C-alpha cells in the first residue's frame, strides 16, 4: 500500500473540506462571538467580581474581599437581636416574582394558543397581516403602553366610567394597584413573545393529521391533546421560556400597575444598587437569579425532550 487508495484519498479530501467548512463557520461567527464575549460575558464577570467585594460607604464597592454579599442572599442577621436566620424577606420576594412569572406564562399561553391557532388556520395570504397586527404593540415604548393601561383601569378611567355610566356598578372598581392588574399587564406585554413561536410551530403543523384524528373518531379535546399539542410542543416551550425569563426580572410593570407595595426581584435588586447602597448584595442577587433561571431552563428542556421522545 504505497499509494493511498481512491477511497482513502477521497476521504482525505472530504475531511479537508469539512475542516475548511468548520474554519469558515468559526470565522463567520467570530464577530457575533466577540460581541457576546464583550457585551454579555464582560458585565457578568464584573458582577461576579463585585459580588465578592465590600460595599462602599456611599454606594459603589471597596476592593476588599468579602463573602458578606453572598451570605446575605440567603441569611440575615436580625437587626434587633443579632441572631442569624434564613433571610425570609428575600425568599418571600423571590417567591413572589417566581409565582408572578409562572402565572404570567400560563396566562400568556392560554391567550396566545388560540390566537396562534387562529392565525395558522387563516388562508396563507392573510397570515402576514395577522402577524403584523400582533407585533404592533412592539412599536410603542413599554412605559407608554403601561401608562395607557393605567388610563383604562384607574378609578376615574375608561372602564370604570363606562361601567358607572351603564349603571353596572355604583362605585368605581379598584383595579389599579392590585396583583390582578400586574398579572394582566404582564401577560399583555409579553403576549407577542408567546404568539410568535407558537405560530411558527403551528405553521409547520400538518393539518391533515388533525383531520385524520377526527376521521378516527377522536373528540376535539383528544385531537388537541394527542395530536396538536405534541406537534407544537417546541413552540410552547420556546414561547414559555421567552415569556418566563423577562417576567422574572420585570420591574416597570409591577411597579406602575401593582403600585410597588410589594417588591419584586427586579425592584429589590435595584434597591441594593440605589438607596440601599449595597452593591455586592445586589450583584450576588442578580447572579442568583441568573442561576435559578438557567437551572429551571435545563430541567424544563430536559423533561420536555424526554416527553417528546416518548411520543416519537
Amino acid at each position: 500500500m504505497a499509494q493511498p487508495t481512491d477511497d482513502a484519498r477521497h476521504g482525505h479530501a472530504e475531511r479537508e473540506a469539512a475542516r475548511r467548512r468548520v474554519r469558515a463557520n468559526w470565522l463567520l461567527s467570530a464577530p457575533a462571538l466577540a460581541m457576546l464575549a464583550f457585551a454579555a460575558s464582560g458585565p457578568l464577570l464584573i458582577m461576579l467580581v463585585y459580588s465578592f467585594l465590600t460595599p462602599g460607604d456611599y454606594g459603589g464597592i471597596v476592593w476588599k474581599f468579602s463573602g458578606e454579599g453572598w451570605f446575605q442572599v440567603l441569611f440575615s442577621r436580625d437587626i434587633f437581636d443579632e441572631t442569624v436566620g434564613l433571610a425570609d424577606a428575600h425568599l418571600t420576594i423571590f417567591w413572589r416574582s417566581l409565582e408572578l412569572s409562572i402565572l404570567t406564562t400560563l396566562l400568556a399561553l392560554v391567550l396566545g394558543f388560540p390566537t396562534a391557532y387562529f392565525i395558522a388556520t387563516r388562508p396563507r395570504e392573510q397570515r402576514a397581516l395577522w402577524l403584523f397586527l400582533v407585533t404592533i404593540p412592539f412599536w410603542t415604548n413599554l412605559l407608554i403602553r403601561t401608562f395607557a393601561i393605567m388610563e383604562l383601569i384607574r378609578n376615574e378611567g375608561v372602564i370604570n366610567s363606562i361601567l358607572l355610566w351603564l349603571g353596572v356598578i355604583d362605585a368605581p372598581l379598584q383595579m389599579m394597584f392590585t396583583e390582578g392588574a400586574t398579572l394582566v399587564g404582564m401577560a399583555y406585554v409579553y403576549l407577542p413573545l408567546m404568539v410568535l413561536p407558537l405560530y411558527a410551530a403551528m405553521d409547520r403543523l400538518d393539518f391533515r393529521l388533525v383531520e385524520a384524528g377526527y376521521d378516527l373518531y377522536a373528540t376535539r379535546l383528544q385531537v388537541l391533546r394527542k395530536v396538536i399539542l405534541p406537534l407544537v410542543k417546541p413552540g410552547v416551550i420556546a414561547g414559555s421560556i421567552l415569556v418566563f425569563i423577562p417576567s422574572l426580572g420585570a420591574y416597570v410593570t409591577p411597579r406602575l400597575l401593582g403600585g410597588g407595595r410589594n417588591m419584586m426581584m427586579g425592584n429589590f435588586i435595584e434597591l441594593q444598587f440605589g438607596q440601599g447602597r449595597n452593591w455586592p448584595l445586589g450583584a450576588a442577587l442578580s447572579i442568583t437569579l441568573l442561576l435559578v433561571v438557567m437551572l429551571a431552563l435545563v430541567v424544563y428542556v430536559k423533561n420536555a425532550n424526554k416527553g417528546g421522545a416518548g411520543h416519537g
Partner: protein
Amino acid sequence: MTRTVKAIGAAAAMTLVAAGPAMAEGTLNIFNWGNYTNPDLIEKFEQAFDVEVTITDYDSNTTALTKIKAGGHGFDIVVPSASYIPIYVRDGLLMETRPDQMENFKHVDPRWIDVDWDPGRHYTVPWQWGTTGVAVNSAVYSGDPNTADIFLDPPEELVGKVNVVPEMSDVMSIAIMAEGGEACTTDKEILKRVRDKLVAAKPKWISMDYGATEKLAIGDWAASVNWNGSTFRARLENPDVVYGYPKTGYPVWMDSVAVLSDAQNPEMAKAFQNFVMDPENAALISSFARYANGIMGSEQYMPADMKDAPEIKVPEEFASVGVFVPECPPEAQKLRTAIWTELQK
C-alpha cells in the same frame, strides 16, 4: 432663524475641529434632576454668554454620584442634594469656586449661607429647597393634615387610599421622628417601634409609588407622602389637595449648584453659578419646578400664585420642626435598609 444660522455655524465648526478635541469652547454641560430646569432660564443664559448648554437628567443622587465618580462624563455642573455634597467634597469631585466671593452672592438669603454641608458656601450656590410632608385630599378627609399619622396610622376615611413614595430616606426619617428619634438614629428601641408601626400600617396603604402630582390631582390617591412643590402642582389641578407638615418632624432638603473638579469649561460654569444667584433668574427656576430658591428678592419676579402658597411658605408653627437629614452613616443606613426591605417583602 438665528438658531438655524447658529446650528449651521456649529456644524461647520465641528467639521473643522473634528480632528481635535471634541469639546468646543462655548459649551456648558449641566447634569441635573429630570424635569427640574426651566428651558427659559437656559435660553437666557445661552444668549447672555453666547454658549451652547446641554442638560442631562438623573433621577437620584446615587445615580449622579456613581456616574461622576466613574469619570469621563464631560459634565461641568451638577446639582446634588445637601446630604450628598459632603461626599462630593470628601472625594475631591467639586471645584472650590468660592461663590461667596461672586458678584451676586449678596442676594443669597443669610439662612442658606452658613449651612452644614458647605459652611460659608465655598463650593455651591442654592438652586431650590423644599420639604417632604403629606398631601391630603380634603374632600375625602377633612381632619388635621399636619401629622405623620396620615400614613403611619391612617384615619378611617383614608384607609386603602394612602400612597407612600418609595423614597427610603424621606419615609424612614418621618417615621423615626414620629417615634421621637433622630433621623439617622441607631437606637434599636426606637427602630423597633418604627418597624412595627410601618409594618402594621402597610396593609392600609394602596401603593408605594411615584407620580403623586398627577395621581393626587386625578384622585387615584386620597393622600400621599409627598414633596411640597409636587403637592402645589397637584393643588393647581385639584383645589381639594392640601399639604401637611408632620408636626413631629419632617425633612427639609436643598439642592445646590456645584462645579465639578474636572469641568471642561470651569469659567462658564462659574458664570452659571453667579447667574442663578440673580433674583430674576432664580425666580425662573422656581416658576418652573415650583419650589422655593433661597435667593432674596426673587419673589417679586415669581408668578402671583406662588407668593402665598402654603406649600412653599412654611407656616410659623411648623418651621422649627423641619430637619435637614444628612446622608446617614453606613451603620444607620444598614438598619434603615433592613427595615425598608422588611416593609416591602
